[in-house]
Structure formats: C-alpha cells, structure tokens
C-alpha cells in the first residue's frame, strides 16, 4: 500500500483551498494534491501516493545513481574482472 508511482505534473491549479495538479502516469491522467511539495512546477516528476505528491524527484540524483552503477561496470570491464557465479 506504500506503493508510489512516479508521474509528470502537467497542470497546476487551486481547488477547495488546496494546490492540486494533473499528473501523467505514462498516458493515464489523474488528479493529485501538491500541498506537500509546494515548490513543484509543471514538468516536474513526483511520487504520488493515495492522491498526494509526497516527493519531488531529483533528476540530478537519479543521474548520479545511474552513473555510479554504470561506473562500477566500466571499472570491472577495464580490469577484466568477471562476475562470480550466482544462483541460477
């Protein structure tokens, strides 16, 4: 139930004194509340949980994580290290 889905903010508006937005989940559009990430802007990606944006996704951090993991692979390749056997 703590599953959160990343989506892209496509529209921001006020409703019932709350900051709401339209979120695009890869084609499916839903409404969500933005009160927990007031700094969000149209085009930002956020994690949505039960109709609330709980976290603004950081592109910089995502790129850094991916680069770090790719770097591990590159170093190993350079050193000619093979992965050990794992369970089939």
């Amino acid at each position, binding site marked *: 139930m703590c599953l*959160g889905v*990343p989506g*892209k903010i496509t529209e921001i508006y006020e409703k019932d004194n709350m900051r709401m937005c339209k979120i695009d989940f*890869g084609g499916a559009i839903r409404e969500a509340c933005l009160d927990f990430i007031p700094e969000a802007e149209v085009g930002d990606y956020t994690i949505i*949980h039960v109709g609330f944006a709980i976290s603004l996704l950081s592109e910089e951090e995502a790129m850094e*994580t991916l680069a770090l993991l790719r770097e*591990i692979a590159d170093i190993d390749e350079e050193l000619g290290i093979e992965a050990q056997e794992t369970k089939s």
Partner: protein
Amino acid sequence: MKYIDEFRDPELAKNTLAEISRTITQPWVIMEICGGQTHSIKRYGVDQLLPEKIELVHGPGCPVCVTPLEQIDKALAIASHPEVIFTSYGDMLRVPGSGKDLFSVRAAGGDVRVVYSPLDAVKIAQENPEKEVVFFAIGFETTAPANAMAIAHAKRMNLKNFSVLVSHVRVPPAMHAILGSPSNRVQGFLAAGHVNAVMGYWEYPPIAEKYQVPIVVTGFEPVDILQGILQTVQLLEAGKPIADNAYKRAVTFEGNKPAQKIINQVFKECDRKWRGIGMIPMSGWCLNEAHMDFDAESRFNVGDIAPEESSVCIAGQILQGMKKPPDCPAFGKECTPQTPLGATMVSSEGACAAYYRYGNIQIPTGANNVRE
C-alpha cells in the same frame, strides 16, 4: 516512463548483481521492511539471482496485514450501521475480522465504498449530508500525511458527518521490536523508500548504532533494490553500522517537512497492536485532542471491542493458503498446541495443529490445488 525504465535496465541490474557477488565474503541476513519491496523481489526473481550468502527475510511493512483484528472488527461494526457510508482503501475489504470481512458487510446491504484517496471520502461526506461517512485511516508513514490532510480539510470545512477509524503504524518502533527480540536474525535493513520520502531517515542513525545494523533507504524498482542490497552488503562487510540512502532521487535525510507537519498537527503517538506481532509501545498514531471530534470509535461507541490474537505467527497467510505451517519460524518451537501463538495452532481444525499432530507431511495447500 522516466524514472522507471532506467531502474529496470537488465544490464545495470546484472552489473549491480556482479558487484554484490564480488563484495560479499560471508553470509548475511537482510530484511526488506516493505511489502511492496517483497513483491518487487519476487516479481523480478531478485532473490533467486543473489549470491547464496544473502538471505532476504520479509518484514512487517504491509499495512493491511498488520492492522489489528480489533480495528477490523470495529470497522465491520461501524460499516453495518444503516446510516453509515464506510469508505476504505480497496485492499482492506478482504481482510478477515472475527468471522467476516467488509465485503460480506456490503453483501448484507452495508454501504461500503472503495476510495483511491482520502479526499474522495471527504467529497462523499460533502455530497451525502444526511449520511455519516467514515474513512478507515490505516497505513504507515507514507499514508499518514494524506489521511491527516483529509481530516484537516474536513475540519476546515466544518464537516459534521465525517469521521475516521484510525489505525496508523510507524516503522521505527517495529525495527526496535524486531532487533530487540532474542530470536532476531536480521543483520541489515532495506528501509521502505516511500516511508522515508515522507519521514526522511533522521530517525534511523540511533537505531543503526544501538543494534549495530546498517539501514539503507531503498527504492522499489529492481535496480533500486539491488543497489540497496549492494550498499547494505558493503556496510556489513566493512563493519559500518550506519544509516545510508540508496534512493536519493526521492528521499532526503530530513524528508518532507510539510507532510511531517500535518501529521503532527492531527495525530499523536500512541501504543498500537500489530496483527501477528502484538503490542508495540508508541508504534502508532491516533487522533490528538484537537481532532477527537473526528474519532469514529467514540462516535459509534465501538471502543470496547477487544478480540485477542497472536504474536509472531503467520496464521493470516496460512489461512489464505499462501504459506504452509512449516514456513513459520515459530512452528513447533515457540509455537506448539501447549503454547500457541496463533489460532491455527489452537483449533482442532487449524492447519498448524494438524501439521504438529501428524508430522510435517507436505499436504498441498488450497492455492497449490488451484494451480495444479
């Protein structure tokens, strides 16, 4: 989809797995706290790909599973009132209480509705002023701010026909309970990334230090989980029991301050029973004094329902045919017919009692029969 596809990249997963294999020198037991992560691990076969030295054990992070029986019984009692529209997240409807579930209340004529967001429940209350609308506010820290916001929103609008049955739970007290148990085997935690998106992980360094276990905030995609495992193994191998973050794109140390603020405005910490685990002191949130007007338990006078159930047993899963009694670590050890931990070991018709009595015969469960 951005932020999903990259973290499902098979090449990246393979590389991360290889790095785990190179790093590990001895066996380690790691618990993923969140049921969502358990699903991801099984779905992508992550546990099958890991080096044999890593044992993943599954944690209590399933809000539906740990919602105590008495709260479910209270939900059933409230939902049965003719003037009530009972609203809940969909996954609660099948959870058995003492004898029945919310689906059977609906089948008997009760107005039980599934909502996607707690704000939907508030809207139903606005649209049905002649009805009492009750929302079943369950969940961990991830869900608590949304539920708190719905209550605050109802209070702002002075909605008199809206109330909540609260059964919130918090992760850190559960970690204390697991790590403090004499039978604990967990040497490292993958923390539940979306709980931490809300709460940050400032609560975790003292836990890591006290019990000398690394705690690594972990996401939900396969590469996220492998990265969480890699960082945990690196910390274990280096003898560094600290709290760390492998889900940096979504989680900061401080967490989401506005979300934490609304939780503190609406709720206060309280003792909470966890189904299958038992009472964990100060492990829950309940309404604070300023919001007691929204308490469904007092509004419908169901405060005194108190069924008794289990501690560490997996009876819930056994009863659903998902597990067999020998899968339970307590089976035949802490849990016997003389000292039962769960109903299935007590009842003469219980699966555990039958297995215990007749030995460990591998009788196919209902689920297996269906598959065959």
